[in-house]
């Protein structure tokens, strides 16, 4: 196998090393694109989460109203019970 002269062999050697580096760079570029996509998705999710934090929870108002109604109902029940017992006391 005769050795190639340096000027001719150098092109092939440089070609091999440059091809390897180019492949590596291509991979890094693809990875960078994927990371950018992940970054965009993360930003979208952060936006959704922030919107949810800013908006008052819809159940809290309902829960307050329910609690008020319960309290009112309990008070009315107590009044009714008192009236009935007093009526029973009055009616022989």
């Amino acid at each position, binding site marked *: 196998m005769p050795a190639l002269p*340096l000027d001719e062999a150098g092109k092939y050697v440089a070609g091999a090393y440059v*091809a390897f580096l180019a*492949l590596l760079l291509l991979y890094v570029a693809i990875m960078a694109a994927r990371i950018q996509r992940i970054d965009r*998705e*993360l930003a979208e*999710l952060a936006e959704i989460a922030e919107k*949810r934090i800013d908006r008052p929870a819809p159940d809290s108002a309902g829960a307050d109203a329910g609690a008020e109604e319960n309290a009112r109902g309990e008070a009315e029940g107590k009044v009714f019970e008192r009236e009935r017992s007093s009526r029973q006391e009055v009616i022989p």
Partner: protein
Amino acid sequence: MSFNAPRILPALTVLTLTAGFALVFFFAPNDADQGFIQKIFYLHVPIAICALVGFIVAAFQAIMHLRTGESSWDVRSYVSIHISVIFGVAVLITGSIWARASWGKWFVWDEPTLVSFLIVFLLYCTYYPLRYAIEDRERQARYASVFAVTAGAFVPLNFIAVRLAESLVHPRVFATAEGGLTPKMTVTFLVCLAGMALLWLTLARFELAAKSTRARLGRLRRALEGDEVAVGASRIAPVPRQAGEAG
């Protein structure tokens, strides 16, 4: 091998590869037979070794997946095959350039070493269509693992078969009877091999990190959007009160 600090492994990889390439051009002597063109050897052979070892590592990870049923092993096996296929592309490109310079042809079809590597490479190229042709995630992972184990067993068998074959074209630099490498060449080769192995590990680690982040993002999106749908549904159609509760 585990590196907790995320920057240590890439830094070590860059350092080792740079040192290896510096040794190739400033320390290792020119080959008496091939001359300067033999410098491709320090690039081509370490990449080939890492690619083939990566396929075998993927097979072991697939075995772990089949034994334990943990999907993380399947992901690791996928990543190992993925990086090894990329390394395989580099092997074919650098090998073709070397072949063109040494033999005057880009590829020699009756040379067992070249053809066997091409067969292994093409075999692993079928891994992707096989994997993504199956929609069910569990079946996909199981079938991919079976493929990885079978193909992984094929790699050393193929290597042994090629070593047993008589070839007059492809050099056997590690053969004991044919001289082999000088000490300076051996040191240079080992540094380049270490650099390539570290590069393989680094890329596999990046790929795993990207995959894991995407999976976590997907889970987060499903959770958030699921909540949004539930909240939206409750706003549109509130749960009616029972007649007794009306007060």
